[in-house]
């Protein structure tokens, strides 16, 4: 078992949320959630539906403003920034992959991939050259001129990956990126996401409710009732299938909650 050597302890976090609180109307979504993500880490954020895991991702990405608490990106506090500066930061430093690719169906594969670069006012020729250079890496050769409305679900999600990565973001936020795909196609997408972001050293914050998807990550945190639980694996990792050496611990805790 090889562990990536990104210096998990040493580096200050690239993305961090401290004591985040966020409600939608009277529905609380986050209730004091804290998480810190070292650069280069692939972090899985798990939790049941409605636990607040997507809200946490949206806060870290500067899409939602928390009601209380602090959000940091690369050492700078970002939750107080105005919307203009935040959207500029999102375009430049972040990449996004959602469950449904959210591509523009009338545009071609190349157009969609080039979009973040065009929005960043890169010259058209450079933007399209960069977009085309991503096609082979994602197994999309020959599909550049197709409309994204005409490609398969797995291809569309790979286009979404390319679009999220084309401007070499520091952090990729992925919210259920395989949610709409069958397991084989989902695995291809995860394999590409993991191998490319490892090569590029990109940090990934991956929201998923599927353990198989989370198993691609370096680490997992669990969001439960708006809090973040860090579930470290037991010190002497056991094969759950044979030993059950994992103890419950001696504390006479109360039932459930």
């Amino acid at each position, binding site marked *: *078992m*090889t562990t990536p050597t990104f210096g998990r302890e040493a580096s200050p976090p690239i993305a961090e949320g401290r004591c985040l609180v966020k409600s939608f109307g009277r529905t609380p979504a986050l209730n004091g959630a804290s998480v810190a993500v070292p650069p280069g880490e692939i972090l899985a954020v798990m939790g*049941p539906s409605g636990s607040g895991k997507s809200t946490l991702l949206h806060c870290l990405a500067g899409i939602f403003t928390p009601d209380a608490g602090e959000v940091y990106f690369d050492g700078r506090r970002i939750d107080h920034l105005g919307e203009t500066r935040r959207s500029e930061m999102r375009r430049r430093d972040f990449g996004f992959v959602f469950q449904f690719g959210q591509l523009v169906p009338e545009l071609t594969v190349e157009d969609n991939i080039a979009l973040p670069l065009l929005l960043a006012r890169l010259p058209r020729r450079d933007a399209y050259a960069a977009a085309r250079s991503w096609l082979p890496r994602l197994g999309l050769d020959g599909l550049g001129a197709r409309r994204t409305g005409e490609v398969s679900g797995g291809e569309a999600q790979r286009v979404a990956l390319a679009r999220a990565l084309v401007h070499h973001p520091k952090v990729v936020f992925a919210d259920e990126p395989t949610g709409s795909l069958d397991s084989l196609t989902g695995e291809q997408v995860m*394999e590409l996401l*993991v191998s490319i972001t490892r090569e590029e050293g990109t940090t990934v914050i991956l929201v998923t409710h*599927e*353990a*198989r998807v*989370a*198993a*691609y*990550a370096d680490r*997992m945190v*669990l969001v439960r009732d708006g809090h973040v*639980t860090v*579930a*470290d*694996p*037991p010190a002497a*990792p*056991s*094969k*759950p*299938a044979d030993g*059950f050496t*994992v*103890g*419950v*611990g001696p*504390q*006479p*805790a*109360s*039932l*459930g*909650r």
Partner: protein
Amino acid sequence: MSVPLTLLGLLERESSYGYDLKRDYDTYFGWGRVLPFGQVYATLSRLARDGKVTAGQVEPGAGPDRKRYAITESGARELEGWLKTPIEPEPHLQTLLSTKVVLSLMLGRSARTYLDTQRAAHLERMRQLTELRRTAGPVEALLADHGLFHLEADMRWIDLTEARLASIAKAIHNQEETQP
């Protein structure tokens, strides 16, 4: 035990020597463990005794064993039957997992803490298997995939059980109260 039947399968492919059978077994079916020579020869002689294989004459040459084994018709029938029969879809862990949850609740300990620890252990194993299938060839990935799906099923069970802990605890305590 699937060793005798797996050896029969290798012999159906072609008649072979004990040493070669062991080597092929380790390559394709060892899944990280090697089959001891002693077990190969013991198994082969039992199969010969039962008429599933025939052992040829000792052939001249170097090496520990120069007997060529071949599958018989009866051996082939048994192999065929075994291959067609589904494995009992038995749950591997659920009684153990359930026992721990029920006992935890019964003893007033935190079943949720146990489930968290179990979830972390499962996910760690899933991470290992995912890494294995990413780096290994498609044949080695077979077992890793199977393990992943089983562990995933356990994970779903862990999530669901956690959501139901309160009602499970209530049911257990009600049961205890109604018993003398």
